[in-house]
């Protein structure tokens, strides 16, 4: 793919991924066929900041985990009052990383 398109993608979506993956993503996108550009461009990623707000407000009910598609962990949080409150607090710090991981997994399906 052209460097211009790839850089445009990185500029628009860089914040959705862990910073140490961005270089790797750029390399993989450069090698990618041009026909996949449309699909890659229309992918929707979850914003870590939005998920953090949800986690702060409704983390005890596991809604943050449900939103990023981690249903099993979400059920675990819901059934245990957010892991007796401890897991809910730990997730305030972990959820942004977890969201970026999930975004990476989503992108990797197309790379």
């Amino acid at each position, binding site marked *: 793919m052209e460097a211009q398109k790839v850089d445009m993608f990185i500029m628009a979506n860089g914040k959705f991924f862990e910073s140490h993956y961005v270089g790797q993503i750029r390399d993989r996108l450069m090698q990618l066929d041009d026909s996949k550009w449309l699909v890659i461009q229309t992918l929707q990623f979850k914003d870590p900041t939005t998920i953090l707000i949800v986690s702060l407000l409704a*983390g*005890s*009910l596991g809604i943050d985990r449900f939103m990023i*598609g981690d*249903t*099993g*962990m979400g*059920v*675990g949080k*819901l*059934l*245990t*009052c*957010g*892991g*007796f*409150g401890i897991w*809910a*607090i730990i997730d305030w710090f972990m959820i942004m990383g977890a969201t970026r991981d999930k975004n990476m997994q989503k992108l990797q399906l197309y790379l």
Partner: protein
Amino acid sequence: MNRGKLYLILISACITGYSWLAINFYNNAFIESNKLGGCLIKSITSIPCPSCGSTRAVLSFLKGDFSDSLFWNPIGIILIVIMVVTPIWILFDLVFKKSSLYNFYHHTELFLKRKWIVIISILLVLLNWIWNINKGL
């Protein structure tokens, strides 16, 4: 998430659950049932969350009061099943070097993401929540 990480999380969750049960069993949680800590929502807003009362439900179940257990919180029964089955299943997997629980976890996740299952479970949780608030847990 890989198999090792999932099993580590499940084992630590089970250990925490059993220690929590033991603490509440020996402190006789029923006497001071309203002082039970451990729930962020209830400590901040004094409104019980959907799964408040499940410790009391599990303890009632252990004492053999099954109807009491259902009254406190039906989620307690689900937790008992999970807490009994998970350690045995993990032990089985580790001994025979399989990943059947890991596969089961993924299948359950996919099953729970179906639209009608999502709608039914949200409704059930909401009903349970309303019931919990009415019971004044």
